[in-house]
C-alpha cells in the first residue's frame, strides 16, 4: 500500500542551510521533504503534513527536540530519526527514551542518512498474513496488532518489528548486533544502546511487570530472546 508512495519526510531543523541541503538530497532520492524550523511549530506541521518519517534535530529554538519527539510520539507511531551533534551517552539515550526510533550523528554522509530513512520506511511493505504468539501475547503481523486477552496494545512500528523479530524465532537468542541488523537495518555494528533502550520501551508496554520481564527475556552476556509461550 505505502510502498507506492514516495515517502513524505518532515525535516525539523532550524539551520536553514542544512535543511535546504537535506531537501536537495532527499528529493534526489525520491522523497518528498517538508520543513519546519521551530520546535513550537513542529507539532502543527506534523499534523498538517502527515509525514511517513520525521527527521528531527535535537537542538531547536522554542521546544527542544526531545520535547517535540515526545509530543509526536504521544499521538503517532511514525518513525522518528534524530539528528544529533552529540553522541554522548546521555543525549542519545534521552532522545531514544523520548521515543525516537533511530539517531544519526552529525556530520553524516548523505548515503548513510538515506539508508537509515529507507530502513525505517522499508517495513511499510506488505507483510504476509502471519499470526505469532509470544508469552500470552497474540501478534497479527499483517494487521500490525498485538493483543493480550483480546485487548490490543499500542506499539510503535519499530517496537512492533522488534517484538515480531523475537517472536518469529522464540528458540533463538538474538545478540544486539543481530537485532540491529534485522530491525534497524544496520549493515555493520552500531550503537547497541539503541537495542537496550527500545527493549526497555517495549517491555514497559508489553510486560506485566517490566522489572521481571517474561516476554522479552535478557540472556546475560548474549542478548535477548522471546519468553516461553
Amino acid at each position, binding site marked *: 500500500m505505502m510502498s507506492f508512495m514516495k515517502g513524505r519526510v518532515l525535516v525539523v531543523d532550524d539551520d536553514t542551510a*542544512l535543511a535546504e541541503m*537535506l531537501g536537495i538530497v532527499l528529493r534526489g532520492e525520491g522523497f518528498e521533504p517538508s520543513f519546519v524550523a521551530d520546535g513550537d511549530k513542529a507539532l502543527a506541521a506534523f499534523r498538517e503534513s502527515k509525514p511517513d518519517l520525521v527527521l528531527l534535530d535535537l537542538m531547536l529554538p522554542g521546544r527542544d527536540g526531545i520535547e517535540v519527539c515526545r509530543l509526536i510520539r504521544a499521538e503517532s507511531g511514525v518513525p522518528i530519526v534524530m539528528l544529533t*551533534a552529540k553522541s*554522548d551517552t546521555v543525549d542519545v539515550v534521552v532522545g531514544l527514551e523520548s521515543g525516537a526510533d533511530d539517531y544519526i550523528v*552529525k556530520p553524516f554522509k548523505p*548515503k548513510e542518512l538515506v539508508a537509515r530513512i529507507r530502513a525505517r520506511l522499508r517495513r511499510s511493505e506488505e507483510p504476509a498474513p502471519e499470526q505469532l504468539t509470544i508469552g500470552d501475547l497474540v501478534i497479527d503481523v499483517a494487521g500490525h496488532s498485538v493483543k493480550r486477552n483480546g485487548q490490543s496494545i499500542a506499539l510503535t512500528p519499530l517496537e512492533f518489528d522488534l517484538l515480531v523479530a523475537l517472536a518469529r524465532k522464540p528458540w533463538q537468542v538474538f545478540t544486539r548486533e543481530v537485532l540491529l541488523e534485522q530491525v534497524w537495518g544496520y549493515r555493520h555494528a552500531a550503537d547497541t544502546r539503541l537495542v537496550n533502550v527500545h527493549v526497555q520501551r517495549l517491555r514497559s508496554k508489553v510486560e506485566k511487570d517490566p522489572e521481571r520481564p517474561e516476554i522479552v527475556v535478557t540472556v546475560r*552476556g548474549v542478548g535477548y530472546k522471546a519468553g516461553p509461550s
Partner: protein
Amino acid sequence: MPRDSAASAPGRPGAGPGRASGRGAGNPRRGRFFTAALLSGGVQGSPVVRLFIRWVRRPLLPVMRLWRRNIQLRVVATTLLMSLGVVLLLGFVVIGQVRNGLLEAKVKASQSQATGGFAVARQSADETAAATHGSTGGNGTDGQQSQNVIQWMSDLVESLSSGGSGAFDVVTLPVGDDSGGGRSPRGSGYVSPAESVPASLRDRVNSSSSTAAAQSYTRIVYSNRKDSQPALVIGKQVNDPNGHPYELYYLFPLTQEEKSLSLVKGTLATAGLFVVVLLGAIAWLVVRQVVTPVRMAAGIAERLSAGRLQERMKVTGEDDIARLGEAFNKMAQNLQLKIQQLEDLSRMQRRFVSDVSHELRTPLTTVRMAADVIHEAREDFDPMTARSAELLADQLDRFESLLADLLEISRFDAGAAALEAEPIDLREVVRRVVGGAEPLAERKGSRIRVVGDLQPVVAEADARRVERVLRNLVVNAVEHGDGKDVVVKLASAGGAVAVAVRDYGVGLKPGEATRVFSRFWRADPARARTTGGTGLGLSIALEDARLHGGWLQAWGEPGGGSQFRLTLPRTADEPLRGSPIPLEPKDSRRNRGLDDGGTPRGGAEKLATVPVQQTGGNASALPPRQGAATPVADPTALPGNGNGNRVVPRPANRGRRPDDRTGAQVPDPRAGGGPEPAGQDSTEAGEAFRGR
C-alpha cells in the same frame, strides 16, 4: 599500624631488626617476653614454640584488634586496673591500721588483766602456804600437800576465770614435763590447755627469769568441739603454795576484734568495688565525651571522602572539641567550595565541548552533504573540477575524523566519558575488527592471523570502546607492517584478559614506545602524512584502556616490528596485577638471539612468560617484585602514571651495534633476580641505555 600484620612476621623470623623479635629475644623477663611475642608475633625460637604461640594467638586476635582499635576500651580498662591497684593498696593500709589499733587496746587491757591475775595467784599461793604451814605446823605429809595443791589449783583456775566471765580463759601448765605432784594441765571453760598454748611461748616463759610475763598470739582449741578461736595468750611462771613453779596463762579470745576487723574489711571491699566500678564508669563517660566527637569526625570525614560534601559536624560549646568541629567544618566547607568550583569548571568545559560540537558539526554536515552531491556528479565536470571535488570529499573525511577524535579526547579530558561495561567475548570484537581491516590488509598485501581464539575470552568491558581500541591497533599494525603478517593474539588468565597485536614492520625506536601514545605524535615526520589517521587514535585508545582500568602498552624494536598489548581486568572493578601475554613477544630479536646463543640464563621460554597469572601462584610470583631496583613489574606501567607504556631498549641497541652482546646484557634488570620478565623495561632504563 605496625602491629597489624598478624601472619607476616612469623614467616620470616630474624629477617630484620623487627621490633618484636629483637625485644622478645633480648628480654630476660619471661612475662615481657611472652607478652611481646603474643602481641607482635615475632619470636626467635623453635618452630614448636612459634606454632604454639600462633595457636594461642589465634583466638586472641579479635580481642587484640578490638584493643588496638578502641581507645575507649583501652582507657576504661586502664582506669579500672589502676584504680583497682590504688583501692587495694588503700585497703591494705587501712586494714593494717585498724588491726593495729584494735590489738593495741586489747593487748593493753589484757596485760593489765593478766598482771592482776598473776598477782592474785601469787598472793593466793602465799596465803595458802602460810595457812598450811600454820595449820600443819609446816610438816604435813607430801600426799596431803599434793592433795591440797590440786584442790588449790583447781580453785585458783576457777576463781581467776570466773572474774572474766567469759572474757578470758585461764590455763595452768606444769613446768617442763613434770606432771607429777598434781600439777597436771588445767584449763577453764573447756579449753584444752596443752594445744592452746604454743610451745615457743612456753619456752620463753620457762627460760625467762620467771618474773617477766610473755605473750603471744595463738588459737584456742576447745575440748568440747567448739570452733577454735584466735586469741592473745599471756603467760608467766608462778609458784604454787609449795613453792614449786608452774605456768599460768591467760587466754584472751580475739573474737570481738576479729569480728570488727572483718566488718571493716567487708566495708572496705564493698566500698572499693564500688569505687572501682564507678571510676570505670566515670572514665567511660569522660572518654566518651572526647571519643564521640572524634568518632563523629571520623565518620563524617569518611562520608565526605565518599562524596557527600554537605556533611558537617555538630558544634556545641566553645571547648577544644568544638574547635575541632569548627576547624573540621571549615575544612569541609573549603573542600566543598573548591570541588564545586572544579565541578563548575568541568561542567562548563563539557558544555563548551558540547556546544562547539554542535556548532561545528551542523555546518560541517551541510558542507559534507554538498561535497558528496558534488562528488557524485563529478563525472559531469571537467577533470580539474572533478579532482577538486575528490580532494574536497577526501579532506572532509579527514576533517571529520579529526573533529570526532578531538571531541572524543576533550570528552576524556573533561571526565565526561562513561564506561558502559557488560560481559563481552573479545573474540567477537576481534573478529569484527579483523573483518573490518581485511580490505586494508589486502591492499597492503598482508594477512591478519588470529591466535588464541579457541577459548572464550570474556571480560566486562565496553564493546564500543574496546572495538575502537582494537581497530586502531590492527589498522596501525597493517599500515606500518610493511606488507608482512599481522598477528592478533588473545589470552585470558587470572583476573585479566589481553589482546596483543604484533606486526613485523618498521617497529619502534628506543623511547618511541612511550611516545606513540602522545597526541599528534608521528613516528616519522617525513612519511607521516601519506598514511591517514588523525594522530589522536592511540591517545584515545589509551584513554579507553584507562577508563576500563586496563593497560595499553607498546613494545617495539627498529626493523623488528612492534607489539601493542591491551590488558583489561576481567571484572570492571578489579585492579590489574599482570597480563596474560608478555609485552615483548617471544619472537623478538633479543629473545631469539638469546636462544641462538644458548645463553644459560633462565631461558627464553621463561623470559617470555608472565608469572603472575601463568604460574598460578600469585603469592610466590608477586612479592619478589620489591627486590628489583628497576621498575620490573607491570603495575609500574599502569596507565594512571602518565604513560602506560614501556619500551625495550636493548634490541634497538643490538640493532645499532649488533656485535655488542655483552653490552646488551649489562643493563638487564633481570640479572638481579626479578622474576617478572615481561614488561620490565622501564622508560628510564631505555633512556639511560641510549645515553651510553
